């Protein structure tokens, strides 16, 4: 273990520079975030991920944000275990009807000010599952969506761009 730790000290970090900001996402967000909320939150956002029926593809890429290459926490963004600690709900999946109540309760449990990010084509409009008896064709009909990140699944870079825009609009 000592050798591995030593190598980590002498080698350059694998972490990569932040991607360029997504202008469209910034504009979308600027209109939704008021200055009082910006002052209160500063440059740090706590994120609670909610899988509302995803295939798990989006979760894999959200996970990747925490690896040493993307290192989400350096931006002041961190994942928290409870909605009560969260500023942002990151919601994936077409919203399975069996998850609807859980999502509603998670949203209510999150203290204001709060934002909802719809991650992936499913959360935005149901994706390939749209039209099924078992899903709500996206989360928009149940919780107010502040930011959409397209993709199936969105890459970690796309996710990072969206989340950094949220942080920027908030600063």
């Amino acid at each position, binding site marked *: *273990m000592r050798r*591995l730790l030593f190598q980590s000290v002498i080698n350059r970090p694998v972490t990569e520079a932040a991607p360029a900001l997504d202008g469209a996402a910034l504009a979308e967000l600027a209109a939704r975030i008021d200055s009082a909320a910006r002052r209160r939150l500063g440059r740090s956002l706590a994120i609670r991920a909610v899988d509302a029926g995803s295939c*798990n*593809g989006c*979760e894999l890429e959200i996970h990747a944000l925490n690896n*040493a290459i993307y290192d989400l926490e350096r931006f002041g963004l961190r994942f928290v275990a409870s909605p009560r600690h969260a500023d942002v709900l990151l919601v994936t999946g077409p919203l399975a009807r069996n998850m*609807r*109540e859980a999502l509603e309760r998670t949203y209510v449990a999150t203290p204001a000010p709060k934002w909802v990010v719809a991650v992936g084509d499913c959360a935005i409009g149901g994706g390939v599952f749209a039209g099924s008896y078992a*899903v709500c064709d996206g989360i928009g009909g149940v919780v107010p969506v502040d930011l959409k990140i397209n993709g199936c699944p969105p890459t970690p870079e796309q996710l990072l761009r969206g989340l950094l825009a949220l942080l920027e609009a908030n600063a």
Partner: protein
Amino acid sequence: MAEGPIDALARQRPLGAGPLVRTIVDVAGWEALAAELANGDAWSLLAHWAEPGAVHAAVLDARDGAVAVATLICPANRFPSLGRRHAPAIRLERAIRDLHGIVADRAPDLRPWLDHGRWPLRHPLAPLPDAPVAPPPYSFLVAEGEGLHKIPVGPVHAGIIEPGHFRFSANGETVVRLEERLGYVHKGIESLWQHAPIDRATRIAARISGDSTVATSFAFARAVEAALGVAVPPRATWLRGLMAELERIANHLGDIGAICNDAAFTLMHAHCGVLRERVLRACAVAFGHRLMMDRIVPGGVALDPSDDGLAAIRSALGEIDGRFPQLIELYDDTPSLQDRTVGTGALSTALARQFAAGGYVGRASGRDFDARRAVPYAPYDALVFDVPVRTQGDVDARVWVRILEVRESVRLVRAILDRLPDGPVQHDGVARPDGVVSEGAAMVEGFRGDYFAWVRVDEQGRIARAHVRDPSWFQWPLLEAVVEGNIVADFPLCNKSFNCSYSGHDL
């Protein structure tokens, strides 16, 4: 609209060569099947599903790897329960009842499974679905005794994982019973497949479980090809194998790190996470998608990687060669980590065999089964590879099986790259309608275990019905068994070492 299996079979073309045949049995034959499954000497239940007026059971004969599908016609929507004699069928029968309204007679558990009373209809796959009724509260199994307390967890979990509900009954720190409640991510995939054009159905099949998108696409494509009698060009089958092994490597790397992370050993997690990312990036260069979603399609593969793409894969393998041995050493030489994994969550060989547990769950408990070898398919029929097996059945054994499988898959990827044949990667005109109803089935080994896929293609070349059974169906019940007697804090380790799919199970 709803066509019975007899009508379908009457117009069915011969399935030709292939190990998967479907036979219609009578009630006595069905009961004999249940008895043989319960006896447990040779047969394992691979899948159990339904369509209007009929139930199907796929069984595997462990002696020669033969797979057969038995169909029982049940016009009164009742059939003798397999679950009564063979426990692995219980949840499948509960799902059949929820989706079709077809009831297993004398079934040991009549509670709903996938239907939580939230859909706008009941029995969504029946010819005429029923109106919804408010269900009674779900009754969990009882655990009673002095000092017992309950810990309800989920469906929204603390980590970034899929939703499901776990009900622990604990005495102090010791778990005396775990009961799972699943179905939260049921998306109605089988209903979406009905009457879907093959290309749309294939996109849905790629999203059964995101971490196994290659494996489910592979299984679905092979089932469609078996139904239509399509021959896949050799280069395409080798590229399929390449993607399947890369998917296995990426998932194992992620999970080995995540298991150690659940023992608060973050160093391993950090290093494995970087290696996993390298593999996914190489996949993106070679196949244009990090998870290789929608790349395997009936008739071949959607994209032929460039030389640069193949070089990116070789380069990622080089990085694994350089760094993975150190990580194995780190796992092996850290007593505080071994203290958490050795002896934890032990699964007996008997249970692994009874439930036909696929993948590393079965192979860490002495069930030496791998669909790549047992039911050979291209390109694996032309490749030589080891299937690592352990017998201890604990978290440590599951970690070791995965470590050894990473090594073996790296070897396989190199062998495939070295021998990749030239030629086209797509058979033309797969979905040509020819006025014939036909069926096909296939088994494919994913990283988590074996997938079983069955499809029926209608006269217009669309999917009439399809079913894909995720390996998690037979692994989830075993997680309940292995947690018993462990401490609550070891549940995340047990759970992550299984890493069952919620989405693939809930479908």
